[in-house]
């Protein structure tokens, strides 16, 4: 082989992307495996698995880390979470945060939605901004209602870390509206798929 050819091969080798030699699959590749439960790119189609597209990455990391150490009540996520490194969890968090949330309509009770609107504005809006849209406190607007129901049960029953401020507000809402309070709020969030989706596509 001529010397020139040697040099050209060397240059072609230099062109090879370094990532091709990396040990871990990319965050995107890891995230594809979640689609079975959480839907394509994190927009869930099954009512018991929450949508995680557009999810705040730090909330995502919190959840995975809590599953990893069995701090959060789980069906299967605790087993899954344990298999991922901190770096992989962070990578997936960033991946899902950038995905567009696709929501499906859910049937809601108009009266409950109305009550839920009032309750949300009074007790929840400051943290769960703009009607509970995806943000630094998670995704409530348009989220699957059965999931929200389980989640709240877990909080109230002490199966999940219950932030002090949240507990105070939830207690106040229940004190004000009794047993209706939680279903009202869940119906309210369930009714938000249109506005949440509109905003999401807007971004």
């Amino acid at each position, binding site marked *: 082989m001529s010397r020139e050819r040697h040099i050209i091969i060397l240059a072609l080798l230099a062109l090879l992307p370094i990532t091709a030699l990396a040990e871990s699959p990319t965050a995107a590749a890891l995230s594809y495996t979640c689609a079975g439960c959480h839907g394509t790119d994190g927009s869930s189609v099954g009512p018991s698995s929450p949508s995680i597209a557009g999810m705040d*990455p730090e909330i995502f990391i919190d959840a995975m880390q809590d599953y990893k150490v069995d701090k959060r009540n789980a069906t299967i996520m605790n087993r899954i979470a344990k298999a991922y490194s901190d770096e992989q969890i962070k990578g997936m968090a*960033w*991946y899902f945060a950038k995905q567009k949330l696709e929501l499906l309509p859910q049937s809601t009770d108009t009266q409950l939605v109305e009550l839920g609107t009032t309750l949300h504005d009074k007790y929840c809006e*400051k*943290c769960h901004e703009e009607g509970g849209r995806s943000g630094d406190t998670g995704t409530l607007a348009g989220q699957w209602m059965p999931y929200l129901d389980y989640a709240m049960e877990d909080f109230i029953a002490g199966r999940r870390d219950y932030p002090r401020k949240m507990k105070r507000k939830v207690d106040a809402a229940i004190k004000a509206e009794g047993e209706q309070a939680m279903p009202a709020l869940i119906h309210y969030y369930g009714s938000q798929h249109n506005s949440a989706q509109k905003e999401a596509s807007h971004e």
Partner: protein
Amino acid sequence: MNKKIAGPLAWFFLGATLLFLYILPAHSAVEVMTVLGEEAPPGFDPVTGKRVIPTVRCLKCHGDESEQTDVDDDGNEIEIYIPPHKFEDSVHGKRRCAECHANITRVPHRQEPEVVVGCIECHRQTWDANKDKPDNEFKRLGVVIEQIEKYQDSVHARPEDEDDPSVLNAGCYDCHDAHNIGTLGSHQRDEHRLENPEVCGECHRKQRNKYKKSVHGKAVMEDGDSEAAVCSDCHTMHEIDSPEGDKVMLQITTNCGNCHEESRQTYRSSYHGQVNKLGYTHTAKCYDCHGGHNVLAIKDPASAVHEENRLETCRQCHEDAPEGFIGFHPHGNANDFEKYPVMWITAKFMQALIIGILAFFWVHVMLWFYREYQDRKAGKSFAHPKPGDDTVYIRRFTATWRWIHLLFAVSTMILVLSGTTLLFSHTAWASFVMDMLGGPKVEAILHRTAATIWLSVFLVHFFIAMTNIVRNRKTFRWFGPSSMVPNLQDLRDVGAMFSWFFGRRERPSFDRFSYWQKFDYWAPFWGAAVIGFSGLMLFIPTLTASFLPGWVFNIATIVHAEEALLATMFLFTVHFFNSHFRPDRFPMSTIMFTGAVPLEEFKFEHRLEYERLKESGELEKMLVKPPSRTMEKGSQALAAVLIFAGLGLLTLVFIGYMTMPG
């Protein structure tokens, strides 16, 4: 492939690949962070990967006017409200909350925000990064940096408890409302001025309560006048220290004058203020008389300087002050005819005297110099004796007169130095000299000691002169050649000298004392009366004020200073020229120190006396041997020292006079 170009082309290909793929990216300014090929999502810093919390997110809770409190972990109610418009208008309005409250990385925050924000660190870093920028955007930050340095030396930056250096007496945010810091000229500035007494009063309760009742406090706290004096106007903003220290006492006195400018100037022309200006604090300062935090308008009957209370106030320092003290004008102003006509007239009279006398004698000096120089060039003069010459001398002054002159000269110079140090307290040299002397208290002793010597010499001389006259009363001629009393011949001599100056006649001949020597002699009589008497009044103020009104101190101060200036400028210019610097005498004459004058010179300068003595046969009796070499050298050294000292003092006085404020 053409072998000639294949080689270089292959090298170029490799080089370009390495350059674009490996070398350039490594040198690009900022590297974007990735995790397993994933870049940070929106809302996160692409370089650090950290969450960027916008201010609006924080204000969701902290900017809600309807819910201004929250409950902390222990169930205590806490204030959480930050008025959004105030923050947005403030100098920090474009900053994000978490830039200062750096421990907040999530919202809702999982921990209490650190109140200890790194004000100093952040301002210093920002200044270091931007101080060299050509636009003036960060110019004001330079002022902040200066203030930080002052703060760090202040009492506020010291620990409250020596064993616990973490708790300072006061940190930045104890005084500054960090969420509401106004830029120069902003509405916040006025608000802050009005709030200042309350902010300081948070810790300094007692002072606040006194201030509230004062003329300043009422204007600020009752009438909302943001122009009236607040704490920081007197105490400074950041250079705060205990008011027990000299530095603070001086600073506060200066600061009063930032508003009361004329009062500061008139105060500084009084003894109280001169000492203060020199950096000493034992004399009365603004607040010693007017009150500090509880200062009231002079016309207020409760004011410490109200006519009814003034004597008592004076007596805080001048324990035995008699009624007469009330008449003293501590802020008397010789430039203000309306208020202080007597002071004005006195000052103008003294100034006219200075100008008149100096104008006459300086013209006299210049003309004399010109004519004598011309004469000397033309050989119309006497020759100075050369060393080894067997020159004949004549006795002119006895030892007594020589000693009297020397004591007079030395004590005068001490008086000039110590006196002008006060008079020109505004100069840098005055502070230096005062420190060298050991402070105003030592200076006062020095001045009074020198004055006592001076007056004693004057009186001793007067006594001897009178004794001589009485002893020779039968033969003493009041208008004779040995008398100092001016006569008609002196007047004729003045005319003759001016004729000579203009080349209209030969140099006139003189008898024992010429008219300028007589002037030199009589000037101290007037000086002794004016300076001595005024000085004595200021020396014993209690006695003076027991039979004279207090305003005589104002007059005495003017007269004493102006007359002393006249004497200084006359002695160290005119007298020095007449005796030492004119061409016949240059660089000096030692006659006053050796007492003897070469006969040739005597003949030239006092031809009439020479002829008279020769005729009467007295001349032979007065002839003496030349002064010894030691005497001659010693006299020269002494004369040189005195001349240089005199010129030095003249320079200091000149500097002081030319830079006199007002």
